[in-house]
């Protein structure tokens, strides 16, 4: 969770993220201004030509890049994962819980397409059903965080004043506390069902979303069209609903996508600590944990769920990052 927070709160001098190395400005090569950037000449002031009609520099307009191939591949993978999660029971895979000890640690083959684990259970089936756990936890946790945290962030960023100070002080205190400690304690004492884990992670992530939503709201509320609406006498609720909300939702959602990846990884971490969903229910983290003991003889048992998790997190990062670059309020020139 700290890593996610880190991604969104860059230190003062950072200049915005570029997704996956995609450059929007060419190599600076130590110094000279690129022609795409406006001429470094200052404002045209008295004593020279007053160019009637605005900007003089023939700057190359920011090109609206289409989504690349990797983006679409990522989206497809995520769709596949989602389908597995939702329709796991309906899909034509074997039973994830049936052991087949004779065939344990089998390599991928005609009978078991992705092989079997230490108890002979079909890996593909476990992967598909495990997707359900990953998706449920991540979607629930992020949803809770986004809705509650987003709400708190928007009202603190919009109304400022005392509300903001109180809320943000509380949030900062909670964030000053290493979240994992809280998580461990809560999980160990409260329980380990899918629902409980999702709820706890969700609640613990509220502060981060509050911060993100507040930052975005602050940026949006300063913009001209919001000020215009308020000057025209629009009620707060109207301004919130029509101007602020639509503009805050997208960047926060983009952030939420990346956060889903973090939660999926978190489930893996919890499995390693023995705090994930109870066995024998298949979870990706659990599969990796189980497979670790067979690392020397049958590394594929660890590799396959690892790859699945990696691809999912990577796809979430790609899509989230691409959307964030597209919709980041702070970067645009409106």
């Amino acid at each position, binding site marked *: *969770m*700290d*890593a996610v*927070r*880190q991604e969104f*709160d*860059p*230190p*003062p*001098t*950072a*200049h*915005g*993220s*570029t997704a*996956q*190395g995609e*450059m929007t*400005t060419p*190599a*600076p090569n*130590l*110094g*000279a201004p690129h022609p795409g950037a406006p001429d*470094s000449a200052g404002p045209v002031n008295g004593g020279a030509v007053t160019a009637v009609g605005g900007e003089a520099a023939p700057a190359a307009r920011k090109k609206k890049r289409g989504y690349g191939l990797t983006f679409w591949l990522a989206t497809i993978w995520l769709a596949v994962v989602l389908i597995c999660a939702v329709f796991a029971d309906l899909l034509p895979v074997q039973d994830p819980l049936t052991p087949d000890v004779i065939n344990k640690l089998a390599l991928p083959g005609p009978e078991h397409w992705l092989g079997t684990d230490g108890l002979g259970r079909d890996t593909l089936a476990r992967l598909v059903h495990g997707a359900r756990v990953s998706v449920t936890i991540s979607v629930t946790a992020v949803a809770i965080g986004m809705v509650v945290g987003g709400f708190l962030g928007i009202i603190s960023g919009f109304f400022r004043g005392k509300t903001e100070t109180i809320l943000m002080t509380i949030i*900062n*205190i*909670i964030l*000053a*506390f*290493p979240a*994992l*400690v*809280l998580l*461990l*304690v*809560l999980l*160990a*004492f*409260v329980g380990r069902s899918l629902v409980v884990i999702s709820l706890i992670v969700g609640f613990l992530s509220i502060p981060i979303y509050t911060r993100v939503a507040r930052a975005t709201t602050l940026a949006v509320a300063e913009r001209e069209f919001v000020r215009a609406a308020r000057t025209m006498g629009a009620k707060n609720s109207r301004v919130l609903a029509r101007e602020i909300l639509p503009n805050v939702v997208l960047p926060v959602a983009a952030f939420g996508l990346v956060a889903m*990846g973090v939660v999926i990884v978190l489930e*893996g*971490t919890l499995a*390693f*600590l*023995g705090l994930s969903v109870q066995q024998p229910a298949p979870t990706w983290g659990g599969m*990796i944990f189980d497979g*670790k003991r067979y*690392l*020397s003889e049958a*590394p594929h048992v*660890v590799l396959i769920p*690892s790859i699945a*998790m*990696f691809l999912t*997190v*990577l796809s979430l*990062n*790609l899509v989230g*990052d691409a959307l964030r670059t597209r919709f980041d309020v702070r970067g645009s020139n409106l």
Partner: protein
Amino acid sequence: MYVLRRLPSLLATLFAVSLLTFLMTSLLPGDPALQILGAENATPEAIAAVRADLGLDDPLPVRYLHWIGDALTGDFGRSYRTNEPVSAAIIDRLPVTAEIGILAIVIALLIAIPVGMLSAYRAGTRTDKLISSTSFGLLAVPNFMVAIFLILIFAVWLGVLPATGWVNFTDDPVQNLRSALLPALSLAIAEMAVYTRLLRTDMIGTLQQDFVTMARVKGVSNRRILFRHALRPSSFSLMTVAGVQVGAIIGGSVVIETLFALPGVGRLLLEAVLVRDLLMVQGVALVIAVSYVVVNFTVDILYSYLDPRISHGRSTARV
């Protein structure tokens, strides 16, 4: 002095954090007396005795004050499980976690700085794209996955590094480093990716600044510009991020120590949590939380001292 101005805020945060720690453990379900005695010995009198002994029937604020008062003198009570003093257990284990954490950050910086600089210097080229894609990809790999792969390669296949176990630095420095390397590396990989990306973005911005052009036009070599002109402003952002990342490292150490069977504070916390060793949990959680707050505070102060733009903010002499 800046430190003095920030001190109240630090103290307030520490207080709040300690309160949170206390509340977290005190409000949990389950009777600690029952835990200590075990089901067989849990006669009502015994329970009452234990509860009186631990002050469990006192109102919460009183309990908190007792606890924090003791904690400030270094007394965190005794573990239910082993009956050893909690503080002893912590002191024993803290250096292990600290060593791994520091090693992880150092390794990460040693790699991220040159790689990030190269990426910024050659922004837009294939080298840069490769580096950027790789760091983006690495961000998606969880630290336990990295750990497993490292174990697979270095312990299982190559057999050059141990998969588990720990040797104290004082006993055998070389072995100590060998046992610390894989765990530190597991944590460092994610850090590396974060630092590289940050440095790259920051330096690309810096390299477009006028003062870099001016340095060039003074006849300064590219290498000197990169290291002595461009890196300096960017290093401050790195420092801030490193401070924040300590939280991630603390979190990561729990898993890594478990994976590698290291006697560190993270694993101590986990084990205490799993057996509901309340006082141990409280003590360790407090130490971890306080360390985190203090580290962030220190980084904050350091940053304001080292970055001249900030430290001289008030004392400008305008002629």
